[in-house]
């Protein structure tokens, strides 16, 4: 019986070594270790042995079974490894083949820039207020200290609907509407479309976007105006931006200023970009004219404030090196997909 066990062990070992598939292994397991397997058959005969032999043969059978089991397991492991290797090899693909491209849409460049501007001002405690684009003469001019036939109206060529209704030339009308409804403190920006009767070319458009701002509170000073706008410009154009304020005139602010940033191209030396001036004008601003406050029912003896306005297209053109304003409104997808 000993020999028989030894023989089973040897043939099993040989057969296991030759095996190629997991199914063959399973067959071998059944052949040797299954209910009717060769080793099981021997085990069933143990009862017939003498008491002396029983433990010896029993142990031999157990050893043989462990041995066969071990061989089967290690063979399984090897086959699995080789199968996996084969599979990984077979599944190799050309990763340079193009993907099934899914494109996400694009925000319009003007929206991207406006969102940035909004974010900066929201961070400084401003709210965003919008208003009608078709306005009355009162909100667009009169309330802003520009009565009929005021020469300053010439600087804003206006589209009229009727004698009293027009396309707003600035978003300051929103500021008037806000001041009429709200007592200070007020901190708002009003972005939106404005209209001027300019013929379309690379730098002019009968429709463009403005962002105007208004702060009214007790004790607001000219130096608050400077500090706020410097912070805005540095947030927008970078901390190294050099800003200058120079006196100007707007009927709705007093004192008024225009704000220039030192030319990004030449750092002030003068180049084509800045028309040799070294500076690029980017916004207009000033302390709200006392008459404008009065017009809105705010007492200029108690409150003061400042207002400013900046053109959105101009910021976007500078940021993206766009040299023709018309591109914004032509909406060619080859343009839109660049942002």
């Amino acid at each position: 019986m000993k020999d028989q066990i030894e023989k089973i062990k040897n043939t099993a070992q040989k057969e296991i070594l030759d095996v190629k598939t997991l199914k063959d292994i399973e067959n071998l397991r059944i052949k040797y270790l299954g209910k009717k397997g060769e080793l099981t058959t021997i085990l069933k005969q143990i009862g017939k042995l003498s008491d002396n032999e029983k433990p010896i043969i029993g142990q031999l059978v157990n050893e043989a079974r462990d041995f066969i089991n071990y061989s089967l397991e290690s063979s399984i492991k090897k086959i699995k490894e080789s199968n996996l290797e084969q599979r990984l090899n077979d599944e190799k693909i050309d990763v340079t083949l193009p993907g099934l491209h899914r494109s996400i849409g694009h925000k319009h460049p003007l929206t991207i820039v406006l969102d940035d501007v909004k974010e900066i001002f929201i961070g400084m405690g401003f709210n965003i207020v919008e208003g009608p684009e078709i306005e009355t003469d009162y909100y667009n001019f009169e309330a802003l200290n520009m009565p009929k036939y005021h020469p300053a109206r010439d600087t804003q060529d206006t589209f009229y609907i009727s004698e009293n209704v027009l396309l707003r030339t600035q978003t300051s009308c929103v500021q008037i509407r806000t001041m009429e409804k709200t007592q200070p403190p007020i901190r708002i920006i009003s972005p939106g479309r404005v209209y001027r009767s300019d013929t379309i070319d690379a730098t002019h458009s009968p429709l463009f976007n403005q962002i105007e701002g208004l702060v009214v509170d007790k004790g607001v000073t000219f130096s608050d105006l400077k500090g706020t706008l410097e912070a805005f410009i540095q947030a927008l154009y970078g901390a190294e931006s050099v800003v200058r304020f120079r006196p100007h005139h707007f009927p709705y602010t007093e004192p008024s200023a225009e704000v220039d940033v030192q030319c990004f191209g030449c750092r002030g030396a003068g180049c084509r970009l800045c028309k040799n001036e070294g500076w690029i004008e980017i916004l207009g601003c000033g302390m709200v004219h006392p008459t404008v406050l009065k017009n809105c029912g705010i007492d200029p003896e108690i409150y003061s404030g400042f207002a400013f306005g900046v053109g959105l297209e101009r910021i976007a053109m500078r940021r993206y090196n766009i040299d023709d304003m018309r591109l914004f409104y032509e909406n060619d997808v080859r343009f839109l997909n660049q942002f």
Partner: protein
Amino acid sequence: MNLSMNWLKEFVDVDVSPKEFSDRMTMSGSKVEKYEIEGEKISRIVVGKVLSIEKHPNADKLVVCMVDVGAIEPVQIVTGAKNLCVDDIVPVALDGSTLSDGTKIKKTKFRGILSLGMMCSLAELGLSVSDFPYAVEDGIFVLQEESCKIGQNICDAIGFNDVKFEFEITPNRGDCLSVIGLAREAAATFNKELKLHKPIVRALAKTHKDEIKVNVPAKDLCPFYSVRIVKNVKIGPSPRFIRERLRAMGVRSINNIVDITNYVMLEYGQPMHAFDLRYIDGSQINVRRANKNESIITLDGNEHKLNENNLVIADAKKPIALAGVMGGEFSSVKNDTATIVLESAIFDPVAVRIASKEQALRTDSSVRFEKGLDKNNCIPALNRACELIELLGAGEVCSETFIVDNSLEEIIKIPFDSGFINKFLNIDLSCEEMKKILSRLGCKVVDNNVIVPSFRMDLKNKNDIAEEIARFYGYDSIPSTSLRGSHYGKLTKEQKFEQKIKNAMIALGLDEIATYSFLSPKQYNKLLLPPEHFLRNSVKISNPLGEETSLMRTTAIASMLEVLSSNYNHKNEKAKLFELAKEFIPNHNSELPNENLKLIAGFYGKNIDFGYVKGLLEGLLDKLFIKNYEFVANSKIAYFHPGRCADVLCDEVFLGNIAEVHPTVLENFNLGKRAYIIALDVKALFDNADFNISYSRIVKFPAVNRDLSLICDREVPVGKLQKIIKNSAGKFLENVTVFDVYEGEQIPKNKKSVTVNISMRSNTATLTDEQINSIIKKVVDAFEKNNITLRS
């Protein structure tokens, strides 16, 4: 406004470079747009004298000249010019010189004869005959200047060495439209004395009282009117200093009298006019409103029909000038004029502005009047003109000045509050320093009041005074501070909603566009709108740039179609676009129209069909938490395909449309592919969106799915089947998916088969077979009631 540096220097000693002058004037509020140094472009051109002129041996049309240019040897120059004589004084461009157009002159041979330079014409120096009326246009500029030396730089010799500055003058500073006004600003900026000149008129000629009668019936429009008569006028060219200055200021020289009126206007800012007394009918001047049906031919030769709003200067019979705008041709100064009437007056700014606008006539005069002029400047300016006439020997000034003064003597006082100014500007400047700044500007401080000089009509309140202090204290010296107080900024619910829409559209792969709010009336035709369609009732611009942009759009769909079309015609394969666009709908109850915000999306391209677009729309509506939306066919919208258009509803509320564009509309917009539109009302979306989002527990019990194949009439919309299931299945219904619609073999004619998957789930337990069967039975029963059967 241009400014001659040489002229300015008569009033203030500024001795800085043009660059520094520009920078500092700009920073004190008089913005210099640019400046130009006269003669800057030319170099190595000197005064020469022609010594001899010989025929060119090899060319009939050329001559060979020897020219003395102040060097040891004369230079030989070959020229084709015909206006030369021996002893002529001429500009000579030497070897290596540059002309005003940038041409370089080098020695060269003409038909074998060496030429060492070139004699120049006016144009080659950058000048014209109006600068030197005695010279010829096409030929060598033969100088008739006294005291120029051979070899001298030509610019110095002919006074071509000024610097001209171009200022941007803001509408409030009419006073700066003059040399004296800018000199005052320069004096304040550089802290120099302003040297004003008091004109001296000898006025030797006599006037008798009836020589001219001045009446001003339109007192309200003409607070001050003055004239002076000049006799024995000799019209001729102006002397060089006047021509030089006019040139630098950009004004053409005409003759001595006209030049003097322009000179004084530029110097004092007071427009003047000279009438020929011969043509003043009845020797009377009436400053009155025009009568209906009156007209005038102005100096530019154009006829203007006048109305009662126009202020005119009239003689006994007719208007002879449109007050403050332009004189009449008939009474203007001619070459044989002997007696002139010089006018210096104040006209109402608004009247001048209206006339200038109505008659489309903008002049140096109207620009000044409409900004408001100082009545106290009229007589000094008139005297200055008379002084110049005497100085030039252009006529004999009469002794009497005829004045009609209806003006009110008004002294503007503004409380001087240095405390306010310091606080308002956040600076710390002493009272004395402030007073110094104000006095440099012509203001006085008396008893704590700022007395404003009459030429500063823009100074009205304490903010104005603060600005004057700030300008000369220096805007850049004022500190920068940040805002105080605890404020927080945030977007409103509506603004956030709009951002959410944009973000969702972008995530769905759409590009955002921006279109003009204008439309052409033709676009309504392109959209096939019937003549009386309500969308044709648009807000019209009364002064549009052109018909193309003459209406405010009542539908942004047209704008979208234009963009789709232009992309298509630029050969872009596909476009998936959206815009949040305003539409303008006239409102009978209000002066202003309604401005409605719309979400417009437009599509064309491969693989894009109605189902694709609808899928995107569903994705959007889900993201916006708009529930219970449904699509109902609508065949009545003119610009949409009648069989491929749906109203989008939410609980019966109209949100908008989704549709394929009508083929004829595609053709009208020149779009060669099928296009699709989504148009939704943003407010309706907002009103129907759910903002109260709360978490619902994730159910651990499995869902059960059952497929049903149904047979129904072809015409029955699948949406109806879904609705029947939703209404009948009860609370365990989780979802209904349609996954097959089939017509054809095995299906009766005019019928279709629709296969749906019904998913059911309970929150509390796994559904039993019994429960499931009961649900399915309810659904099947409901279908049967609607004549829809199970496919066997």
